[in-house]
């Protein structure tokens, strides 16, 4: 592992450097993925640009009724511990608290997790559920990209060579939102998801009729994905056990998992159904304001 180290002290300086270096400079946020890849020589880099000095990208801001904005350098630990995130976006808090373990959560950032674009990225499903909007910055200006257009394949995103992810906006939805992220691994900590499922249920007025259902899945396709057909089944419907079962079955049909060292394709398909069912029940209970969440 050998490289030149760039240490910008501001975003502006970082963007200038990225413009000059382009693909030759890898952006280092928390380092929990990048440094491992560099050490294992799965990646080489002429230069590494540490954002440690760009302090104003580590923030969590909330505007009532509008939504939350997270700086790209907000750490998993910071997001998981944020009372407003726990309250408004429990699925995101849960995802962040399930990344690696405490030491990794203190280093790793939500922006890094997205830009790294692993199909198993834990923070991706919650952001997909929330229709998050990413602000990509360069010396040419800023552009806003939907999370749905951000991932292009395993470890590939729409980020251009001179761009840096600046912040992530998650809009607040009207009505009552209940959501959860469930991660399956062989153990609770230090795991890459075998399957990760996020479900959000929105209620408007009645406790029985679902106004919106969203399902996001990780580790089951080349990128984290939404299960749009599964979502349709519950939308504007009265909740019944058979419907939740059907949602889970259809969501699994929308996935295209592979067999790898962590699990087989068949096992993943089975687990999508199980986690989908469970997540839908938890999300529904949360939307209804039930303390007791029937897993």
């Amino acid at each position, binding site marked *: *592992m*050998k*490289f*030149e*180290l760039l*240490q910008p002290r501001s975003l502006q300086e970082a963007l200038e450097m990225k413009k000059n270096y382009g693909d030759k400079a890898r952006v*280092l946020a*928390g*380092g*929990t993925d990048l*440094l*491992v890849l560099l*050490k*294992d020589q799965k990646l080489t880099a002429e230069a*590494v640009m*540490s954002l*440690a*000095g760009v302090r104003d990208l580590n923030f969590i801001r909330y505007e009532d009724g509008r939504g939350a904005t997270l700086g790209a350098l907000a750490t998993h*630990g910071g997001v998981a511990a944020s009372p407003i995130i726990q309250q408004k976006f429990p699925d995101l808090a849960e995802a962040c608290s399930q990344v*690696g*373990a*405490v*030491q*990794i959560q*203190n*280093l790793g950032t939500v922006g890094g997790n997205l830009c790294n674009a692993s199909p198993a990225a834990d923070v991706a499903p919650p952001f997909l559920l929330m229709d998050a909007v990413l602000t990509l910055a360069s010396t040419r200006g800023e552009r806003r990209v939907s999370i749905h257009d951000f991932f292009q394949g395993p470890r590939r995103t729409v980020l251009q060579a001179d761009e840096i992810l600046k912040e992530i906006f998650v809009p607040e939805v009207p009505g009552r939102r209940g959501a959860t992220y469930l991660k399956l691994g062989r153990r*609770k*900590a*230090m795991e890459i998801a075998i399957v990760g499922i996020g479900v959000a249920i929105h209620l408007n007025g009645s406790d029985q009729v679902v106004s919106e259902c969203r399902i996001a899945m990780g580790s089951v396709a080349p990128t984290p994905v939404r299960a749009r057909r599964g979502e349709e089944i519950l939308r504007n419907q009265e909740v019944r056990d058979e419907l939740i079962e059907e949602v889970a079955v259809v969501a699994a049909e929308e996935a295209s998992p592979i067999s790898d060292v962590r699990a087989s394709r068949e096992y993943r398909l089975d687990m999508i159904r199980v986690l989908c069912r469970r997540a839908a029940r938890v999300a529904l209970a949360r939307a209804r304001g039930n303390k007791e969440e029937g897993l």
Partner: protein
Amino acid sequence: MKKIPVTLKVNGESYDLMIAPYRTLLDVLREEIQLTGTKKGCDVGDCGACTVLLNGQPVNSCLVLAATAQDAEIMTIEGLAQKGKLHPLQEAFVKEGAVQCGFCTPGILISLKALLDKNPAPTMEEVKTAMAGNLCRCTGYSKMFKAVESVTSGLGR
């Protein structure tokens, strides 16, 4: 590769160093500052043996470039005992026999210190979460839990 000047503040002391920009905090602590209490296990963030406090937060020092830790307060296992007096956690580990081969112990003590600084009376579940990133391959966790309990039990739980 050209070396760069880096000043690190470790356990309250300042160290002016000339190091290669790609060296990790772990390697610099061990090889340049000779603080070898922090252990190198996996070197990829899986085992937690290299855990140190960075501004009070436990992190894997193998995943931090030393040059990027310039402005931080770093604490290693060597900084845990104050004025020759062991930290209560260290005392408890000795008393309960919570140290077997000892390789994971520095990292675990740092993780636990960070927990107790934040939460002086944690539940056992919280203790386990705090230690989830630290592997003990002697598998001697029970005595460690006992040791933590002996430190926290008097704290009005």
